[in-house]
């Protein structure tokens, strides 16, 4: 599958490129704000929804096999819309949910499939996070440090380990444990 030209925004999320991300805010914020305001929300709600949608895509953007197959604005709008409906539902505002759902909204099929993949990604990320949180404190500390880009040599110093090789061995043991927890959760 070919990457949509908007994939550059996913690269911008991955690289924290504020200039490119600003283009995305310029393009998307008016429509999302207008829609949320029309559906019993505030500008702050719109901002929250949009930011969390971007954060969720940020995790996907780190995956090498992730392909964006539709315009990112359409995907973001669909994510925000559905998340807002979920929030209204959680707040038991059923009448508003019905009103939102009654409105005609049929995204392009490419957006629908992109959204479905996004949903699967969210479940997978939640599974990873849940298992990660069950690891020992030392493992969590080590993995988070390395995730932030700290070099193994530096991580060894910070965690009182003898050298980078120890860090790799420890990391390997932590990742094995992490994997076991993920598999165990999947078997439940």
């Amino acid at each position, binding site marked *: 599958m070919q990457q949509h030209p908007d994939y550059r925004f996913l690269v911008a999320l991955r690289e924290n490129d504020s200039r490119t991300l600003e283009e995305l805010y310029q393009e998307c914020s008016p429509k999302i704000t207008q829609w949320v305001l029309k559906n019993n929300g505030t500008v*702050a709600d719109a*901002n929250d929804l949009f*930011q969390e949608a*971007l954060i969720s895509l940020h995790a996907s953007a*780190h995956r090498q096999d992730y392909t964006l197959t539709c315009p990112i604005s359409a995907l973001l709008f669909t994510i925000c819309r559905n998340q807002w409906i979920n929030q209204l539902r959680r707040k038991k505002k059923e009448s508003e949910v019905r009103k939102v759902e009654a409105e005609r909204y049929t995204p392009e099929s490419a957006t629908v499939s992109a959204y479905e993949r996004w949903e699967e990604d969210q479940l997978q*990320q939640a599974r*990873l996070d849940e298992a990660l949180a069950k690891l020992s404190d030392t493992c969590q500390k080590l*993995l988070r440090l390395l995730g932030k880009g700290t070099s193994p040599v530096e991580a060894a110093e910070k965690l009182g380990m003898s050298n980078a090789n120890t860090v790799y061995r420890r990391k390997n043991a932590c990742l094995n444990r992490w994997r076991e927890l993920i598999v165990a959760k999947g078997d439940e």
Partner: protein
Amino acid sequence: MNENDYIAIEAYLQGEADQEARAALEKRATEDVQFAAALAERRQLNDHLKARGKEPDLRNTLDQLGKKYFQSKETTVRKLRPQKRKPWQRLAIAAAIALVVSLGITFLWPSKGTTYEQFAQHQPISLTERGTGDELASQAEAAFNQERYAESADLLERYLQEQAEDQQAKLALGISLLESNQDSAAVNVFQEIAESGSSLAPYGNWYLALAAVKRGKNAEALKFLDLIPATDTYLKARADRLRATL
């Protein structure tokens, strides 16, 4: 697959493997299915860690962009601090003020109520920026903007325990205290703002003047009004109008 295989994969994914080791590993991944699967799995875990590691910095960037692109019209047009204006706008405002003065202040100004009530018209606040204490911020904001001052005083005090540097919230706390007739506590808060050197310092003096007017101490009020800088044209115009009535 043994421990050394995994360690080689980790060094590769961490970007620490040398060119030769990289080439060997990539070659093996094309030939050995089990190794390729292990590499893919480890890559997924590493990618997830990288994403989570970089998330706080991205949140900071998005917070800034959110503030810029998701602004409530109601709050932005009525911010506490006047927005910076272009020279021609300043001239137009100055001309408008001069015209109002020459036509007579009473034409635009309500004549009923005490002097304090006439001038104690508080601008709404907007505290609901993303971050910690959001729920409290929105409750405090709502209570203040709906003039439930006893409640907003309590909420703002709690909010300020977490966001001690928020001068806007501090000013709103002072106003809430003043409106709930806790004048001396209010004066202390305004005093702190006036001495803070922050952009809201002139408002500290403005409200110290209003608090003095409320307590009938007009001479004291005049002293505070004198401290409002002419560069703050919006507040200076209000101060001049108040001075004219004292």
